[in-house]
C-alpha cells in the first residue's frame, strides 16, 4: 500500500494537483477547507503490534478505530483519551489514522490526557513521497524532536500518517456516575474544587442545570468518593458518556452551528447568546450560536485566555480556527513548507 500512496503523492507533485487525505470520512466536515483528489487510507489496515503488558498498540492508518478498541477491550484495556468516532449513515466508521490526524479527545481528556499525550510514534509519508519514522513504541523517548506528537492533530497537513503507536491503559476496576442539580456557576466552582482534591474523577458534563460526574478507579476509591460527594448515582451511564463523546446527546441536535471554546477551567459562566454544555472540568465549553457571532465569541474566548473553533456547521468564511499570532503562523508556514514543499496535502484545512 505504501507504494500506491507514494505514487499518488508523486503524481500529485508532478501534476501540481492537491490531495485530501481521507480515512472513513467521519470528520470530513471538520477544519477550514477540504479539497483535492481523495487519498483513501482505508485499504491500509491492520494491527502491527499489540503487547498488552507493554501498554502499547501499533496500527496502520486505515484500521477501524472500533476494531482497535475491541482488541483492547478483550485485554481489559482502552484508549484513555476516548477519541470520538463521529460515524454516520454515509460514513459509518472512523479510522485510527483519522483519529490521530484529527487529534480530538473525548470526555476523559481533562483527567487522563489528550490524544497527543498518548502518541508514542508515527510513520509519515511526506510531500516528497518519503517515508519517515518518528518516536517509537516506548513510553520514554527523547531522541530527536517529538515530531509524532506534532503530527497528532495536524489534520493531515504535514503528510499522510501511515502508522502510529499509542500508549494504552487498563480499564478502571470500577466506574460510577453521579448526578447533581446545580446551576452553571456552582458547577464550574465545584468542578475546580474537586479537581484539586485526590478524587478519582474521569469525566464531567454540565448542561441545563444538571451536572454529571464520572468516577473511575479502584473500587475503594470510587466508593469513598461517592460517600464524600453525595449526589444521585446515575443508571446507564456508559450510554450517556458515549452519547456525549459522539455528540448524539440532544444538545448537539439541530442545524445551529456548534462552537467549541477551549478555556482555562476556572473561567466563569461565559456570557454569550446561545445554549451551552460544559465538559472537561470547565475547560471545554460547547456553544450553539450563529457564525455571525464569531467576533464576540473569539473575543470572549481570547479574553479568558483560550480560543474558539467553529467546530461544525455555520459559515466557514468567518474562520474555523482562532487566528494565530504572526510569529507562530510563520513557524507553521516553515514547517508546512519543509514537510510538504509542493503544498499537496490538505491545503487550507489548517495551515
Amino acid at each position, binding site marked *: 500500500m505504501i507504494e500506491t500512496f507514494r505514487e499518488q503523492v508523486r503524481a500529485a507533485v508532478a501534476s501540481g494537483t492537491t490531495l485530501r487525505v481521507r480515512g472513513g470520512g467521519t470528520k470530513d466536515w471538520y477544519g477550514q477547507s477540504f479539497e483535492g483528489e481523495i487519498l483513501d487510507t482505508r485499504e491500509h489496515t491492520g494491527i502491527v503490534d499489540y503487547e*498488552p*503488558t*507493554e501498554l502499547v498498540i501499533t496500527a496502520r492508518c486505515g484500521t477501524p478505530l472500533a476494531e482497535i478498541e475491541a482488541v483492547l477491550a478483550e485485554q481489559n484495556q482502552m484508549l484513555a483519551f476516548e477519541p470520538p468516532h463521529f460515524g454516520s449513515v454515509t460514513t459509518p466508521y472512523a479510522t485510527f489514522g483519522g483519529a490521530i490526524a484529527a487529534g480530538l479527545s473525548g470526555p476523559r*481528556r*481533562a483527567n487522563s*490526557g*489528550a490524544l*497527543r*499525550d498518548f502518541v508514542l510514534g508515527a510513520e509519515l509519508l511526506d510531500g516528497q513521497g518519503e517515508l519517515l*519514522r*518518528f518516536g*517509537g*513504541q*516506548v*513510553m*520514554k*523517548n*527523547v*531522541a*530527536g*524532536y*517529538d*515530531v509524532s*506528537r506534532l503530527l497528532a*492533530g495536524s489534520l493531515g*497537513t504535514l503528510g499522510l500518517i501511515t502508522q502510529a503507536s499509542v500508549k494504552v*491503559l487498563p480499564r478502571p476496576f470500577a466506574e460510577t456516575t453521579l448526578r447533581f442539580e446545580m446551576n452553571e456557576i456552582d458547577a464550574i466552582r465545584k468542578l*475546580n474544587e474537586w*479537581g*484539586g*482534591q*485526590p478524587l*478519582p474523577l474521569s469525566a464531567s458534563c454540565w448542561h441545563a442545570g444538571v451536572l454529571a460526574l464520572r468516577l473511575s*478507579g*479502584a*473500587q*475503594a*476509591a470510587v*466508593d*469513598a468518593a461517592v460517600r464524600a460527594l453525595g449526589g444521585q448515582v446515575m443508571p446507564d451511564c456508559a450510554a450517556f458518556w458515549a452519547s456525549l463523546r459522539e455528540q448524539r446527546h440532544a444538545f448537539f441536535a439541530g442545524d445551529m452551528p456548534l462552537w467549541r471554546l*477551549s478555556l*482555562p477551567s476556572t473561567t466563569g459562566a461565559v456570557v454569550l447568546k446561545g445554549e451551552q454544555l460544559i465538559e472537561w472540568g470547565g475547560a*471545554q465549553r460547547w456553544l450553539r450560536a450563529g457564525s455571525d457571532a464569531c467576533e464576540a465569541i473569539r473575543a470572549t474566548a481570547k479574553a479568558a*485566555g*483560550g*480560543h474558539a*473553533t467553529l467546530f461544525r456547521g455555520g459559515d466557514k468564511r468567518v474562520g474555523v*480556527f482562532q487566528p*494565530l*499570532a504572526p*510569529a*507562530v*503562523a510563520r*513557524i*507553521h508556514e516553515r*514547517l508546512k513548507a*519543509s*514537510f510538504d514543499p509542493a503544498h499537496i496535502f490538505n491545503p487550507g484545512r*489548517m*495551515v
Partner: protein
Amino acid sequence: MSAPLQAPLVAPPERREQVAAALRARLPERAVLHDPEDTRPYECDGLAAYRQLPMIVTLPSSEAEVLAILAVCRELQVPIVPRGAGTGLSGGALPIHDGVVVSTARLNRIVKVDAHARTAIVQPGVRNLAISEAAAQYGLYYAPDPSSQIACTIGGNVAENSGGVHCLKYGLTVHNVLRVRVATIDGDVIELGGEALDAPGLDLLAVFIGSEGMLGIVLEVTVKLVPKPAAAQVIMASFDDVVTGGNAVASVIAAGIIPAGLEMMDRTSSRMVEPFVRAGYDTDAAAILLCEADGTPLEVAEEIERMTAVLQAAGASAIAVSQSEAERMRFWSGRKNAFPAAGRISPDYYCMDGTIPRKNLAQVLTGIEGMETTFGLRCANVFHAGDGNLHPLILFDANKPGEFERAEAFGAAILALCVEVGGTITGEHGVGMEKINSMCVQFGRLELDAFFAVKRAFDAPMLLNPDKAIPTPHRCAEFGKMRVSGGVLPFPDLPRF
C-alpha cells in the same frame, strides 16, 4: 565522570571583546561574565567528562535582557547555549568556545500559584522542587520528579522533557506543562500552548518540550499541579533472577494496575547502595523490585493487596511492604542514591539512559553482561521498569589509561543494543553532545533532515545550541567509518566527505 584533558579551544580575544562590548552596552555590568575565572563554573554540566570554557556567560534577569542578548547574538552571529542549573547528564549545556551561555539563574521567580486552577506560572530558573514546595500549602504538587529535582530547573526540564520515578502514572514534562513563553532567535516572544487544555494550530508545545534548548529560550512556564495523594506505600520484592523480576513487572501491568512507581535494581546495584544508605535491601536477590501505590488510604490498601498477590504468583522470593512513611522513604532512598553510590565505590561512572520494550529486558541485560567481559568494565543496572527506561552505570577509572575510552565504547554498544531491540538511545537524559553519534544509529538521513527542518522553522540562522542533539550527515558518515564491522558499511546512503 572525568576524561583525559584535551587542548582547550579559545575564542580570539578581539572577538570576545567585540561581543562583550555589544552585550555590555545593552545589559547591566553584572549580567556579562567573560573572565575565565568567572566563566569556569559554566564549563560543563552534569556530564563533566565534556568541558569547554565559553567565550562569555550572560545572566539576564528579565525578558527584555534575554531579548537584548538574542539581538546581539543574531547581529554578530554568535552561537548561544541556554543553561538552567547545569544538572543535565548529556552535555546539552556544554558551552561553545566562541559562544555565549545564557544562564536562567536570575530568572527564578514563581510568578503565581493558582490553587483553584491548579496551575503555577514560573520563570525558567525556578527549581523543580521549589514548585512543589510552593504548592504544598494547597495540597498540590508538580508531578515530574527527576532525581535531580532539588537542583534542576523547570526550564531545563522543558528542554529535556524530564521524567522521574513516577512518570508511568503521572507522565513526563510534556504531560504536565500547559504553556511556555518563548523568545525566538528572531526576537519574537511567542506563546506555545496556553492556560486552556489546547491551543489552535499545530502542537508546537509538544515539539518544543524536549528540544534541548535548540528552538528558543524559555521565558516563562505554566505547569499543571495535581492533588497530593493522601497516602502511599511501597512493596519491596526480591527475585532470584532478573528475568523473573522482569516478568513480574509485566504481570502487574497485565493485572490492570498502573503503580505510582515501579523500579528494579540488579544485585550489583543493591550491593552498591546498601552499605551507603542502609535501605534494608535484600542483597542476595538477583533483582529487587520497588512497587508503589498511592491514593486514598483505602485505595492504597486495595492496590497493595492486589500487587502483593500478583508479585507472589510471579515468583517473588521475598516481599516487604513499607509500614510507615519513614520506611517508605528508606526503601526509596537506595534507589534514589544509586548514582551517588556508584560514585562512592568507583572513581568514575558513566550513566546510560536507553529505553527498551520491557519484554526484551532479559536479552538486553544478558547482552550487557557479555559486554562487561568484552570491555573489561563492571556495570550496575537500575531500571525504571514500568516504562522500560534502563540506566546502566558503567564503572571505570579515568586515571587508568584507556578506561574512559572503553567506558564510552561500552555505552555506545549498550545504546546500539537498545535500538536493535526496538528501543531508543535516550529515555530522559537527552542526546546533547554525549549521544549525538548514537543518533546516527537510531535514525536515517531522512529523519535527521526532518529534524533539521524543524530546527530551521524555529531558528533559521542555526544559532541556538547548534551542533547538539541532531548530527549532520557529515558527522554520521565519520561515525559510520569508525563503526564499519564485518565489511558492511552502515548508512550506505549517506554522502561521504
